[in-house]
């Protein structure tokens, strides 16, 4: 378990917002004044007004209390403005943190599918944090300032009242505070149990087929039942503490009332007036008890929930190893005129320290301007190879040289040297033009745009979307249409080295042929990871990966040298392209 970073972050967060806190306290003082006058006004109205037979004076005191109430309401507006200044920045920070982390992780391990938990973190969990934090601030602040007003009021009415009221109040609060830690632990245990159950249910839901096929229904049911029962046990334990908390609330809120009644003869003997007694009861039942009630509710549930959610949102790497981070402009300087030569020297790469290497001791040279196609069964390392050449992955051993220089991750702006278009085409919600210029650091002329879109066959799609400046809704595009846009983007890029990693897999064969021809005609070095074996026909040379060997040669050479290639092409012969 790593140490929670919440306390440090919270302190930093609050320290930066001292002025907001001061403003909040200022408005809250008006609430104290309202509480104070609420009881004091009643006492005065009774003693000097109604009980003295002077209704006018009584009504005047009540009018003062009413004005205080209205002022208190006015203060609520200020309190909520202060609250917004505290809560909204918290949410902004959380959203920024979640987005940064999700993106960093996705870039770090693109092989892992984008996971839907991110949306939950971004929306649900950040909202839980926002609401619980606001609730806590509101309630804790309200209790403190209400108690302040009430205690001042009691002291003003008769200092002896404090002797009666304060001890049980303090005792009850102490009891409540004593329940707080165990209750937080139970709450956390409950959330953990809940999460374990959700995890198990998620596994069962995604692997239902495997559970059934494996005949493991009974053992899975037993395991799930055990987790369900564990969750229920945690909930019951939480309920017991909720009972204990109710008793603490009773001690803090109700016991003072009782003590006040019991000691009333003594107080009356010492000259306490009827109005003061009624005022004291008003403080206890109409100010302190409700404030205590909401405080206990909020601190018990929202407090723990807030801590857990904040912990989850702020834990983990915020800026993980940046394999593709914002590095210096070394790459920009690497832009040269001609097509580059790509060399791999004894390159080995594995996806983890203990994982078997996906690429092992690979030597390969791609000549300037050459068109190389990589084929092999799925999972064999073709995409890894493309990512290594693109600088997205760094080899464990050996080196990847482009134009004699080791490949570096791309910096802040698009590379002028190379582009990689992966199988999952990325189209974002902006105009077609913005999508096409994504890889052009210096923009592009209208003629170049027209030429690129024409070359890859994007024309009809752009017309359908309503021109280059029409907005694109990625969700409404087919996979193939997205790939066409990504291909147009790569074609337009100034980079002399293009890597297409199954970038045409969703196109029909004719569209694929046109796109690949467009890239073959484009000046520069071209490496294509083939989805269909037919791509190999269009290559200068073919690299066959079968997991053990890497064989490189022309189509004709490979028919002699690679049985896998023969196998693949043998099947393909029937296509007669």
């Amino acid at each position, binding site marked *: 378990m790593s140490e929670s970073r919440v306390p440090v972050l919270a302190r930093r967060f609050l320290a930066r917002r001292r002025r907001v806190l001061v403003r909040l306290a200022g408005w809250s003082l008006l609430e104290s004044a309202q509480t104070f006058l609420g009881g004091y006004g009643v006492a005065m109205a009774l003693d000097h007004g109604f009980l003295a037979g002077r209704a006018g004076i009584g009504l005047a005191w009540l009018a003062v209390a009413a004005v205080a109430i209205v002022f208190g309401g006015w203060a609520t507006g200020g309190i909520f403005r202060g609250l917004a200044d505290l809560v909204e920045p918290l949410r902004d920070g959380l959203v*920024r943190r979640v987005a940064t982390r999700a993106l960093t992780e996705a870039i770090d391990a693109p092989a892992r599918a984008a996971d839907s938990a991110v*949306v939950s973190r971004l929306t649900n969990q950040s909202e839980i944090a926002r609401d619980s934090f606001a609730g806590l601030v509101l309630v804790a602040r309200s209790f403190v300032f209400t108690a302040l007003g009430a205690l001042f009021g009691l002291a003003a009415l008769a200092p002896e009242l404090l002797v009666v009221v304060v001890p049980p109040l303090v005792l009850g609060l102490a009891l409540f505070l004593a329940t707080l830690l165990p209750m937080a632990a139970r709450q956390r245990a409950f959330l953990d149990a809940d999460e374990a159950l959700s995890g198990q249910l998620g596994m069962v839901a995604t692997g239902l087929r495997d559970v059934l096929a494996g005949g493991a229904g009974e053992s899975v049911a037993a395991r799930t039942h055990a987790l369900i029962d564990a969750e229920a046990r945690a909930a019951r334990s939480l309920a017991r503490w909720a009972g204990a908390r109710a008793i603490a609330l009773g001690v803090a809120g109700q016991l003072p009332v009782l003590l006040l009644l019991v000691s009333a003869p003594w107080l009356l003997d010492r000259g306490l007036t009827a109005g003061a007694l009624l005022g004291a009861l008003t403080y206890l039942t*109409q100010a302190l008890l409700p404030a205590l009630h909401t405080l206990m509710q909020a601190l018990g549930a929202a407090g723990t929930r807030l801590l857990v959610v904040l912990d989850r949102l702020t834990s983990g790497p915020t800026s993980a190893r940046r394999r593709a981070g914002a590095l210096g402009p070394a790459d920009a300087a690497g832009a040269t005129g001609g097509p580059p030569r790509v060399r791999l020297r004894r390159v080995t790469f594995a996806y983890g320290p203990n994982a078997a290497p996906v690429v092992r001791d690979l030597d390969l040279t791609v000549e300037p301007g050459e068109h190389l196609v990589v084929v092999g069964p799925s999972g064999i390392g073709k995409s890894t190879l493309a990512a290594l050449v693109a600088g997205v992955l760094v080899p464990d051993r050996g080196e990847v040289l482009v134009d004699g220089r080791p490949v570096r991750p791309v910096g802040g702006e698009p590379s002028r040297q190379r582009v990689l278009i992966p199988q999952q085409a990325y189209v974002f919600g902006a105009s077609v033009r913005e999508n096409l210029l994504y890889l052009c650091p210096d923009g592009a002329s209208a003629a170049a745009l027209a030429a690129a879109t024409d070359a890859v066959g994007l024309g009809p799609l752009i017309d359908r979307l309503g021109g280059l400046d029409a907005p694109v809704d990625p969700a409404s595009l087919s996979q193939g249409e997205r790939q066409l846009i990504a291909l147009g983007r790569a074609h337009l890029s100034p980079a002399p080295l293009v890597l297409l990693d199954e970038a045409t897999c969703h196109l029909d064969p004719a569209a694929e042929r046109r796109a690949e021809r467009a890239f073959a005609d484009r000046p520069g070095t071209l490496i294509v990871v083939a989805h269909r074996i037919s791509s190999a026909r269009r290559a200068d040379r073919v690299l066959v990966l079968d997991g053990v060997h890497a064989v490189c040669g022309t189509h004709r050479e490979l028919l002699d040298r690679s049985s*896998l290639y023969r196998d693949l092409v043998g099947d393909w012969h029937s296509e007669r392209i």
Partner: protein
Amino acid sequence: MAAIRRTAARTEPAPADGTDGPGRLLVGALRHSAGRTSALFACSVGAAAVAIALPAVLGHALDLLLDNAAGARRAVALCAILIVAEVVFDAAEALLSGITTARTAAWLRRLGIDHVLSLAPHRAAERGTPGDLVTRLTGNAAEASTAPATVATGLAALFVPLGGLIALAVIDLPLFAVFLAGVPLLAWLLRAFVRDSSDSVARYQRVQADIAGRLVEALGGSRTIAAAGSSARELDRILAPLPELGNQGRRMWHVYGRAMAGAGILVPLLTTAVLAVGGIRLTHGDLTVGELLAASRYALLAAGLGAGVGQLNALVRSRAAARRTAELLAVPPMRSGTDPLPAHGPGRLELRGVTVVRDGTAVLRDVHLIVPGGSTVAVVGHSGAGKSTLAAVAGRLTDVDAGTVWLDGVPATEVDPTRWRREVGYAFERPALFGDTIAEAIGFGPYASSPGEVEVAAEAAGADGFIRLLPKGYAAPLSGAPLSGGELQRLGLARAFAHAGRLLILDDATSSLDSVTELRVGRALVRDVRAGTRLLIAHRASSAARADRVVWLEAGRVRALGTHRELWDVPDYRAVFADLGDPGAAEGSAAGAGPGAAGEDR
């Protein structure tokens, strides 16, 4: 497991649209915790009664104390009893409602998971994504489970304000009139709040969804972003609506604050008005100080009517949540029987006139097929030809819409499911693994395998090598091991081999293996795994070539049956193998392979 049988054996058909489901489910939940719910009801009624009685008794005691009258001591004692009773009732209520809710949630979830485990995987998938299924059993079940406690305490929650109102009328009619005049104002104010807030909340959520949408978009393009080094640009684009979110958020707080200010003013003003009128009546001797105290407290209690209505709202929400859980329970379970399979059968599989319909389209049409015991049959065909459905039908992962499946002369639907699973095993293209460790994942099945069996199976599946490279070998935690597609497949194969019975179905289970490994696994399957019938869904010509016979499916029908060599002369047959890579991408398996199904290629 008894519960599975019970749901499976349920004779009355559940209503298809689930309209009657939530009501019946909640009544069932009430009945399940009848004792606790009654106790809770008694406690909350007791608490309500005390809450209503206390102000009057308190006021009376105050009057006696002020008059220094004789009964003061007794009145204070009564107050003490009532106050203690209120605290005890409150505590008991908190305890019991928590316990009842926990118990109900557990009951609903057990019912739900047992039912889910009795479903054909594709039927569960039709109901929703795995995430949706989980929500129905976690969040929805939790919300539904509050219903018994809400019902038990809700009635009492309504008693208190109503009691306060009546008590106010009993104490003094003019005070009652003052209060009533203020109530419409309160109601009007609350309604204004609800309308306003939902509007600003909707806008806020739209902006939030916009940010989430941008983020998901970018995550889907992570490879492009990584290659282009454009993460900083992307982050700016994703977070562009954040200031607008802040604006909408502030508006929400503003609206909420206004409403709170309104509500915060109104109730105290209402009590102050009651006090003012009461004060005047006090001056005239129509009211005592104690009665004034009681009246102001009753006004406060009566003003809590809104909270009681809120509890009603909670019940409506529970019911809506129960509907989502009930919909899941309404999905009909798979048919099953009780017959045994003949002992030592060879594993002869026969399909007679099998038709399977999905979404109104027949994916298998009138398929007749005999797989002789002990033989290996490969099923080939283009994506969408129905191969995976045939695999699912053969091992009873789905019900057929017409026709029969026979194993060793017994109709599959008549066989006891437990015995069936011991004899029929599967390996999949993308297996879902269960268990904490690698060894548990392989041993997962109808019975636990010994460590020796696990290792033999892993060896046969070509998995032993990479497992031993893991930090703790077979004891390595499953969650911590980064597995490639090929490694995952080999673990799935090992799991199937460890429990091999008379029929083994390999549904594209070697697609991510390189040709050498595949060949080795193919040989080991013959040599090291319990002999039996094998049905394999194949994409590679080499797999089909090694099978005894090939079933060639086209558009849900058997186009031809023969050996690979015989069929190879047909150009259409060769075209089946022309697609390279991307195996099974279009033909997702029945249960859906989960989030990893995107066809990630390393």
